[in-house]
């Protein structure tokens, strides 16, 4: 464990060459450290997501949490910004991919980087994790935590999000760990099964863990859906996954 950690607000290059605000948490010292890009949930670039970045630092990873709503409004007006994002149909996928790749390149450019990177996302960030890992080879391992709309009927696709991530499975470029609650309906257990079947058929490296008594967002300690037992067990799966592929 790394109890001495350093945290900063930074900016890094993102989609279209834009400077993106991000939270950067890493162990103190010269390392070298593997990195993790953390994709925040729909409630935004909030306190809990910053805690997650610090948790990775505590476990020996340099973590970057890009502010994916950067172009929609400032984090000081997070609730109004979220309202604008959802009214507008969500963050365009191309923008998310560009911003995540920019975060990865920032981490790889640090002198204390091992060059190995993981990706993790929660809620809408879970969907974005599958999306990003299917559109770049920057990452050595990915973790989808209850991403909704990985499986998406054609009539729910939009110009901003034109393709369901499940339909990108052939291009998935990183081993994928999936963590889901069986009481969740977005994604539903049936959608999780459907995603798993496609991964299996495509011969991809993956591992899915499903938890009874847990619904959506069961890691989030500041929300009513937090489930301590499943969350603790599933965090163990995350560490094992990254130990295997990043260290």
């Amino acid at each position: 464990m790394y109890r001495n950690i350093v945290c900063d607000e930074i900016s890094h290059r993102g989609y279209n060459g834009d400077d993106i605000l991000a939270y950067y948490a890493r162990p103190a010292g010269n390392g070298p450290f593997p990195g993790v890009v953390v994709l925040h949930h729909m409630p935004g670039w909030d306190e809990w997501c910053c805690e997650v970045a610090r948790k990775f630092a505590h476990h020996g990873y340099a973590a970057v949490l890009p502010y994916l709503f950067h172009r929609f409004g400032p984090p000081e007006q997070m609730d109004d910004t979220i309202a604008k994002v959802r009214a507008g149909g969500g963050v365009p996928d191309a923008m998310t991919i560009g911003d995540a790749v920019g975060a990865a390149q920032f981490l790889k450019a640090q002198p204390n980087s091992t060059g190995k990177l993981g990706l993790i996302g929660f809620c809408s960030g879970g969907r974005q994790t599958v999306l990003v890992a299917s559109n770049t080879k920057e990452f050595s391992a990915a973790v989808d935590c209850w991403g909704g709309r990985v499986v998406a009927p054609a009539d729910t696709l939009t110009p901003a999000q034109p393709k369901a991530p499940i339909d990108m499975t052939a291009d998935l470029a990183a081993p994928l760990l999936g963590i889901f609650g069986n009481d969740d309906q977005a994604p539903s257990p049936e959608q999780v099964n459907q995603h798993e079947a496609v991964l299996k058929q495509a011969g991809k490296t993956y591992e899915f863990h499903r938890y009874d008594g847990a619904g959506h967002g069961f890691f989030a300690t500041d929300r009513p859906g937090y489930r301590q037992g499943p969350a603790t067990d599933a965090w163990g799966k995350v560490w094992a996954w990254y130990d295997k592929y990043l260290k």
Partner: protein
Amino acid sequence: MCSWIVEKAKMSGSAKGINGWFETTEATVVYDHPYHAQLDHALCIDFINPEQGLGARVAVELTVESALELIKAIEMALDRGKHLHPEVITPRVEMLALK
């Protein structure tokens, strides 16, 4: 936001937000994760005016039961007031009665 249930309605009226009254031109109705209410999912309504920026917003995040109570209260109030504006309200109330 994972359910991605979003409906929109054109509005004509006023709403009082953090900077005072503004003309609201749109309502976004969402059933998804709330920002503030301690619920997994909530019925969220934003009365907004996109031309006036992020702050032109009045928001509520309600339980399903509360949202249904609100619908009933709106319908009752409109029904009681229909004699004041029959040309606008009557067709709407009749349409609801047909359902």
